[in-house]
C-alpha cells in the first residue's frame, strides 16, 4: 500500500512539473500581454507616450517580466512550493494563495453539494431502470435523466431563475450570503450530471444483477433490499465512482458560467479571466491546481476501489 502511494505521488509530481512547463510555454507563446489587455479594456490607446513607456517598464520590473524566461519559470515554481506566489496581475492587492484560500472552499462546497444531489437523484433512477429493465419505468427514467444531460447548466440556470425568482419569488436571483443562495446553483449544476450517472448506474446494475451470486441470493429467499441494495449495488459502485470522481474534480476548480450568473465568488471566474487577461501567475496556478485536483481525485478513486472491492488490491 505504501509503495503504491509513494509511486503514485512521485508520478504526480512529475506530471505537475510537466503541466507547468507546458502551460508556461503556451502562455508566453500567446499574443498580447497583460498591459495591453488593460489598455484595450480601458480604451486608453495613447496619452503621454513617455508615461506609458515608464509605467510599462515599472510594471515589468515589479512582475519580474523583464527577467529571462527560465528565471521567471523557476521563480514561479519556487513560489508554488513555498505557497507564496505573489500578487495576481489582475488583482494587484491579492496574493494568488489568498485567492485560492478564499475561493476554493466556495467552489468545493458547490461541487460537493451538486455531486451529492446528482448521486441522490441518479442512483435511485439507475436502480429503478435496471430492476425494471425494458419496462416503461426504464424508458421514462432514462428519458428524464437524458433531458437533464442535454441542457447545459447555464441554460438550466436561467430557467431556474425565471421559475424560482421571478415567478414564485421563493429565491433571490443570485448571491452567496445566505444558505438559500446555494439552492439554485446546486440545482443547475447537479441536474445536468444526473443523466450520465444514471446511465452508468443502470448499466452496471444490470450487469451485476445478471451474476450467478445474485440468482443464488434470490434463491436463498433474500429480500429486495438485501439482494439489490445490499449485494448488487455495492458491486456496481465502482463504475459510478469512476465517473463521479473526475466530475467532482472538474467542479471543484470552479464552473465559470454558474459562478458568474449566481455571483458565487469561486475559482471559476478567476481562472477563466486569467487566460483572457494574460494574468500569468494566476494562469499558471489555475493550470497546475486543476491538474493537481484531478490527479488527487483519481488517486482517491483508485483507493476507494480497494475499499469497495476486496478483489482489487495493490501490493
Amino acid at each position, binding site marked *: 500500500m505504501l509503495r503504491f502511494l509513494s509511486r503514485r505521488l512521485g508520478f504526480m509530481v512529475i506530471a505537475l512539473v510537466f503541466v507547468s512547463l507546458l502551460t508556461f510555454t503556451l502562455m508566453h507563446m500567446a499574443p*498580447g500581454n497583460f498591459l495591453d489587455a488593460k489598455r484595450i479594456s480601458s480604451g486608453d490607446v495613447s496619452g503621454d507616450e513617455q508615461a*506609458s513607456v515608464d509605467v510599462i517598464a515599472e510594471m515589468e520590473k515589479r512582475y519580474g517580466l523583464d527577467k529571462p524566461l527560465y528565471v521567471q519559470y523557476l521563480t514561479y515554481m519556487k513560489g508554488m512550493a513555498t505557497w507564496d506566489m505573489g500578487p495576481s496581475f489582475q488583482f494587484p492587492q491579492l496574493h494568488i494563495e489568498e485567492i485560492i484560500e478564499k475561493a476554493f472552499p466556495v467552489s468545493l462546497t458547490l461541487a460537493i453539494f451538486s455531486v451529492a444531489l446528482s448521486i441522490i437523484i441518479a442512483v435511485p433512477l439507475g436502480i429503478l431502470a435496471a430492476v425494471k429493465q425494458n419496462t416503461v419505468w426504464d424508458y421514462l427514467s432514462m428519458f428524464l435523466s437524458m433531458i437533464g444531460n442535454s441542457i447545459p447548466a447555464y441554460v438550466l440556470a436561467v430557467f431556474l431563475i*425565471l421559475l424560482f425568482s421571478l415567478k414564485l419569488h421563493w429565491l433571490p436571483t443570485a448571491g452567496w450570503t445566505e444558505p438559500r443562495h446555494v439552492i439554485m446553483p446546486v440545482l443547475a449544476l447537479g441536474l445536468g450530471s444526473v443523466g450520465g450517472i444514471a446511465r452508468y448506474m443502470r448499466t452496471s446494475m444490470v450487469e451485476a444483477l445478471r451474476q450467478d451470486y445474485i440468482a443464488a441470493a434470490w434463491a436463498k429467499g433474500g429480500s429486495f433490499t438485501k439482494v439489490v441494495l*445490499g449485494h448488487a449495488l455495492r458491486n456496481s459502485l465502482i463504475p459510478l465512482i469512476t465517473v463521479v470522481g473526475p466530475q467532482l474534480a472538474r467542479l471543484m476548480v470552479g464552473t465559470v458560467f454558474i459562478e458568474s450568473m449566481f455571483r458565487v*465568488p469561486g475559482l471559476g471566474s478567476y481562472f477563466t479571466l486569467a487566460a483572457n487577461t494574460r494574468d500569468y501567475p494566476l494562469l499558471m496556478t489555475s493550470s497546475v491546481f486543476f491538474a493537481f485536483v484531478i490527479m488527487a481525485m483519481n488517486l482517491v478513486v483508485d483507493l476507494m476501489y480497494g475499499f469497495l472491492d476486496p478483489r482489487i488490491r495493490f501490493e
Partner: protein
Amino acid sequence: MRKTWVLLLTLLVSVGLLSGCLPGQPKETEKKDPAPATTGQKTDGPKQGGSFTSFIINPTSMDPHIYSYGAHIHRMALSEGLVTWKNAKFEVGPASAESWTVSPDKLTYTFKLKKGLTWSNGDPLTAKDFEYSLKRAIDPKTWAGASASYQGAGILNAVAFQRGEVTADKVGVKAIDETTLEIKLDKANDNFLMRLAEVWGLPVHQATVEKFGKDWTKPENMVTNGPFKLKSWTVNSEIVMVRNDNYKGPNPGNLDQIKLFLNPANILAYENNEVDSVEVTSADIDRIKANMPEQLIATETGAVQGFWLMFGDNQTLMDKRVRQALAMAVDRDKIAKVVSKDTVAPAYSLFPSIIGGDWSSKYAYKYDVAAAKKLLADAGYPDGKGLPEVTLLISYNIAATDPFTMAVIDEWKTNLGVKAKVENLEWGLFSQKRFAYQPADFAGMFNFSWTSPYPDAINYLRGNWGLDTLWADGTKYKEYLDLQNDKAMDAATKTKKMEEFRLANASPEGKRWMELKAAIDKEADPAKQLPMYQEMAQIRLDAAMYIPLNVAKAFRVVKPHIKGYEMNPFLIGYPMYYRSLYSTK
C-alpha cells in the same frame, strides 16, 4: 454492506450539517470606530436613511490611485478630493477645500481646507495629506500611470517626476500649513479644477497605507474621508458601503447603506426587486420601454466609437481623399435609428455632443454622397474601382460584431462601390495586429472606442486621436516600429529619437499638428490657445485618419422610490455620486 450505508449516510449528514456554515461568506468585520460627532438631523431636504442596491463593474483593486473601478467607487462614495463636480455638467464645487484663489497668471492655485475635517477614524484631515496623496498618485511606483485621467492636468514637474528626472520635492504640490495647499501648474489650464475632481485627486490616509501596504484596502483596515465608508468587499461578489458618521465635509450623503453587486448585471434581479437600479442593454430595451417606460432613464455618453487607420505596404488608404470619402458616405442618422433602434447616437465628429459648445457640430463630416463620390474619383478610384477590399479589424472580446458596422459596410458598397469586410480577432491578436506593420494585400482600419472622463473638449484633442503618427509615407512606419521595439536603447533616448522621427516623417497635417501642440505648450494664455486648438480640430477633420461612427448611449432603470439619481455620461450611466441618492421608502 451495512458499513457502506453507514459511511454514505454519515457523509451526507455531515455535508448537510456543514451547510450551516457556508464558506466564502463575508465576515462582519466591525471596526471599532470612535464615537461619532453629533450630526444634527436634517429637518428639510431629502429623507435620510434607507438603502440603495445595484450593480457595478468588478473592481480589481480598491485603491483610488490604481486604475480600476475601485478608483471610481472611491470618487463616487468613499473618498473626497479638494473639489467635486456639482452636477452632470461637471461644474466644480467645494469639497475638502472650502475656497481657493488663482494667481493672475493662472499658474498657482491656493486651496483653503474646510476646518475640522477628519478621516473616518477621527484623525484630522490636513493639507499634508493632500500633498502626500497627490504625489503618490503620480508616482510611477504606485502604478497610477495606468490611468489616463491624470494626463494633461499640468502640475509642475509631475511628468518629470514620473520619468525619474526630478525628485518628489520639486513637484508643484506643497502644503503651506495645516489647512493651506498650494498647487503650481506648468501652464495655464481653465479646466484644471474640473480635472482635479477626478480619481487621481483623491486623498489616502498615509499612516494606514504605510502600515498595511497592499492590505490597506481591506475593509477592516481602510480609512477614508468621504461620506460613506467601506463595510465589506467580497471579491467577485459584492461591495457594501455604509454612512460615514465621521464625515464633516460639505457634501454628505442621505442613505444609510449602499450595496453594489459585482457584474455581470442581471435585469432579472431588478424585476425581482433585489436591486434598485440596473443598466438596460439593447436586448431588453424594447421590453422595458413597453412595460415600465417611466422607470427608464437615458443619456448620451462621451464614448465615441469609430475606426482608426492602419499602416503598411499598401498605400491606397494613405490618400486622405479616400478616407474623407469613406467618412462622408455614411448616413449615420439612418443607421442609428433603423439598425441600432436609437440605442446609439450618430457621430459625425470625434467630439461627442455631450461636451457642449460647437465642437461636435463644427468639426464634423457631412453626409454627402455626391461629394464623397467625387473625392473618390479624384483620388483615382471612380466608383470604387481599383480599391482593394477594406478590412475593418474588430475584436469579439471587446464587443460583439456590431450591426452598425455591418450597416456602414453596406453603405460604402451602395454609395461608393467600395467593398469592405470585418475581421474579428481574439483581443490578444487584435492588440498586436492593430499597431503592426501590414503587408501589401491589407488595407484597413481598426475599431476604437474611447471616452474622456469629463466633458473637456481639449481632452478629446490631446488625450487621444493625434496626428503625430500620420505618416507621409506609410512604409516609414516600419522603421518607427523597429525603433519602438529596440530593447537595447534606454527609455529617455528612445523617446527623444521617436519624437524626432515623427517630426521628420509625418505628413503635412501631422507636422502642422505637432507644431501647434508645441506652440500651445509654450502659450500661457488659454484665450490664445483656443484658436490653435481649433486649428488642430480642423486639420484632424481634414486628415480623416479617424472615422467616427457613433456615440454610445447609457440606459438604466431606477425604482420609483429612489430619487436623486444623476447619470454620469462619462461613466456609462453610473451615478455622478452616490451622495445625491435618497430613498422615499
